[in-house]
């Protein structure tokens, strides 16, 4: 299975490529390159339509390719890419979520200045150039190729068979996100600050990942996860390299999921980034990052878990509790959802720490449930406006249920899903991770989990109270009517949230069948 082990080979061997297995990634990267060409050569008037078309076609084609990839499972590219059940499940999830994200990003609201993205990312905020760009009706279309590159990295991330490929995937998915975060049309300085913060902290965490990889290389003599796993069984006396190596790699990966104590960027970046990008990051990045953690932990270093699982327990508990508690004090809806996403990362970790196939399938189900609800929620946030710009302060949401019952009702439903109320996907997902935890010796985590859920529920309930039981403050806040793109994104998100609450069996079945890693 592993083509070449460590050590120097004198002869150059041409690596075999299983194109069926890597086809989704090739399609997405191809679409991204096409997007760059469109950006360079297409006339401005046709660029938007062309970019949206290329991105959507690329993503849907890749999704179909994932379906075909079921027959092409295996390790390819000399073990650098492993396409197995979890990888395919996660790639399919990322692609489906990306379709919704691109739909949300494609929303332009047919008006000047209400676009979520700045007219011209390169111009200084408040400058003459910016004003001119706005007057000219320019819209930012480079977001689509950037998103496609990020999606490509995300597809590779959970399928990486060695730490080096994983690192490359991490960088490929991160760099476009740093740029995307800085493109908000509203409060541009805040957006650019978010971008810079994300970049610096992201770079910092990447070095942790690299240092950890180096230590593991020193320990096992290879970057390959399979070889590392093999070394753990046979190697003794080098734990001084192993445990720090594992923990440092985990720091790099946990940073992307926003687990405490590596969460400090999440609220700032989620608040500053353009709202559709926030939804994309919150959903897709998390899916990819949890996929990578699953692979690193379950394929690579699970046998040494007694040495580092306690630290991961502490991280999970801190993530659930702090995420939920800090969400209580937030006054900005995007920051609030950011802290809620931190708490959810903790719930996912609870399932991961079961160290069992059940835990893997619970995590797989959870990220699907959370991803769809999240993209829909952020898409709704971007629709609620006060005088053209997004109304993200909670007080502005007061009485929304009276004036806009459908939008408020949809949002309330999504909040109930986040809160884990039965008959929504959130409950099924929570039940899956908690029962995995209880079944495999992590009952304490489940107890902390339900208590954090109760705290988090208060947060969601508070927003419902605001929307339904409070009187509107003034009448400047209104919901602008979305085009077919956002409508579609929200409808699909809500529908999935409902279906996974009422009839989750098919997806649970798929997750259970996909939960086996190829070692």
């Amino acid at each position, binding site marked *: 299975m592993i083509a070449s082990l460590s050590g120097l080979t004198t002869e150059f061997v041409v690596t075999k490529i299983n194109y069926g297995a890597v086809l989704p990634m090739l399609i997405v990267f191809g679409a991204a390159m096409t997007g760059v060409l469109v950006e360079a050569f297409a006339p401005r008037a046709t660029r938007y339509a062309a970019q949206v078309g290329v991105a959507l076609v690329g993503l849907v084609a890749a999704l179909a390719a994932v379906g075909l990839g079921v027959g092409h499972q295996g390790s390819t590219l000399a073990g650098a890419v492993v396409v197995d059940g979890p990888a395919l499940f996660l790639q399919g999830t990322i692609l489906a979520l990306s379709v919704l994200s691109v739909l949300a990003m494609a929303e332009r609201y047919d008006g000047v200045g209400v676009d979520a993205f700045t007219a011209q990312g390169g111009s200084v905020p408040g400058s003459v150039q910016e004003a001119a760009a706005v007057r000219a009706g320019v819209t930012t279309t480079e977001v689509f190729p950037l998103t496609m590159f990020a999606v490509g990295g995300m597809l590779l991330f959970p399928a990486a068979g060695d730490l080096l490929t994983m690192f490359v995937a991490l960088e490929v998915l991160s760099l476009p996100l740093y740029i995307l975060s800085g493109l908000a049309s509203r409060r541009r300085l805040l957006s650019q600050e978010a971008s810079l913060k994300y970049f610096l902290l992201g770079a910092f965490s990447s070095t942790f990942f690299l240092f950890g990889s180096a230590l593991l290389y020193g320990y096992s003599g290879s970057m390959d996860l399979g070889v590392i796993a093999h070394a753990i069984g046979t190697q003794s006396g080098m734990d001084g390299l192993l445990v720090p190596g594992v923990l440092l790699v985990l720091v790099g990966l946990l940073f992307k999921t926003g687990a405490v104590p590596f969460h400090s960027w999440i609220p700032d970046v989620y608040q500053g980034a353009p709202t559709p990008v926030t939804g994309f990051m919150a959903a897709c990045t998390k899916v990819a990052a949890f996929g990578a953690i699953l692979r690193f932990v379950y394929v690579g270093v699970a046998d040494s878990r007694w040495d580092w699982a306690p630290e991961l327990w502490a991280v999970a508990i801190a993530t659930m509790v702090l995420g939920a508690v800090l969400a209580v004090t937030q006054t900005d809806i995007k920051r609030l959802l950011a802290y809620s996403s931190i708490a959810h990362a903790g719930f996912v970790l609870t399932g991961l720490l079961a160290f069992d196939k059940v835990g893997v399938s619970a995590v797989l189900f959870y990220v699907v449930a959370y991803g769809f609800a999240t993209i829909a929620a952020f898409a709704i946030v971007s629709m609620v406006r006060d005088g053209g710009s997004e109304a993200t302060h909670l007080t502005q949401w007061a009485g929304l249920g009276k004036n806009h019952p459908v939008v408020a009702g949809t949002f309330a439903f999504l909040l109930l899903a986040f809160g884990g*109320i039965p008959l929504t996907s959130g409950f099924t997902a929570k039940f899956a991770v908690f029962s995995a935890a209880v*079944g495999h010796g992590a009952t304490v985590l489940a107890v902390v989990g339900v208590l954090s859920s109760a705290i988090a529920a208060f947060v969601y309930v508070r927003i419902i109270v605001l929307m339904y039981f409070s009187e509107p403050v003034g009448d400047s806040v209104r919901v602008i009517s979305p085009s077919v793109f956002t409508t579609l994104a929200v409808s699909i998100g809500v529908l999935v949230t409902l279906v996974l609450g009422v009839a989750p*069996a098919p997806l649970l079945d798929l997750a259970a069948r996909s939960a086996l890693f190829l070692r």
Partner: protein
Amino acid sequence: MSDFPWLTTIGLIPAAGALVVAFLPASLADKARHIALGFSVVALFQFSERHPWIEQFGVSYAVGVDGIALVLIVMAAVLVPVCVLAAWRDVPEVGKRQQAYFALMLVLETFMIGVFSATDVFLFYVFFEAMLIPVYFLIGSYGGPRRQYAAVKFLLYSLLGGLVMLVAVIALYQHGPGGADGFLIEKLTALQLDQTAGRLMFAGFFFAFAVKAPMWPVHTWLPDAATEARPATAVLLVGVLDKVGTYGMIRFCLQMFPEASKWAAPAIIVLAVTSVLYGGLLAIGQTDIMRLIAYTSVSHFGFIVLGIFAMTSVGTAGSALYMVNHGFTTAALFLVAAMLVRRRGSKRIPDFGGWQRVTPVLAGVFLISGLSALALPGLNSFVSEFLVLVGTFQRYRIAAVLATGGIILAALYILLTYQKMMTGPKPEAAAGTADLSHREKWVVAPLIAAFIVLGLFPKPALDVINPAVARTLYYVGVTDPAPTDPGTAEGAVK
């Protein structure tokens, strides 16, 4: 006929009604209440059915009723139409808001029937939690001035209890036989549980049910919720919803954790007696009539829990009957008090006085409801309260004696309130107030009929309840203590 999913159909009738009412075309919007009333009148049959739902979790959609569940479902099915009728003018303006109000009530009815008929622990939990949402909106959107506070407090208490129970639900499945239908109650009874695990799981379930019931010291959400909610909502909340707590104690705590139940019984008896006396004392001190009724319920729930954990056939059967009786009695108290409050425009007891001279029929109805609450012989509550006390006396004599004090307190809070509100000189402010309208008579008539029927002929209801109680106690593995004084126990069995 036996293959037809009767129970599901019955459960879904209100849900279908809710959809119809909520999405009624504008031309028919003024008929929303009539349609809601029509859908809320449902018939009942005893059947059970089972389909796989989420096999990966071991969850089935399994419903069925035994005696205890049956009487509770009948009670719910009687109370919902009464409440719809009582709530006729709660949201006077025809339109979406009114439609939503009645639709929520019907959704709630579906969930209530579901929760009492679920024979799968997971399904029970789903209904248990889902029920909160319509109540939350009923209180929060349509309640009184402090409705936001009351609604959030209600939801958070219940959610916390439910989430603690969730861990116990998961753990119970892990200790059970597992498999694709491992959540069925029948598969989870009579398990050989590890002592510590059994007690911890029992505690998880009991906490949720104690919050819901509500028992002292986790009762504090009830007075706020019941006062701020519309009277019809308060009836459904206290009369039906809270019964899920005591129902759960019989169905889950006793049946699935017999060892832990016996172990915890003395402590729970203490809590129950405290609830009886504490609720009664606080009721006497209230000046708000709605709050007073809420506290009487705390006291009555104390009696119900007392009978359940006495674990004698008489006491537990008495508790099951008490649940039904309390539903009707509290409904009458809340609704009649609401009629008074609407006429006077105040909830404060001192604002009344001499009203039996203005509205004699209303005063009479209020008195009958009150007498039912204080367990006057001949009315419904007497039978159940007597059975509970006798059953308790067989095992816990001191507790039974102390709880009898609750009856004296009941006489005080009911009769003193009647005296303050109804007797005295004819009030000037109330001159010309109308007595009961036709609609209001239709609201109270079924309730008073229930008082009398259940007071004079409790045997049919007890015949339905007794086999279920006997089966539960068989699982617990207790037999009634031999009566030391034959005169006490013999007469009460039937």
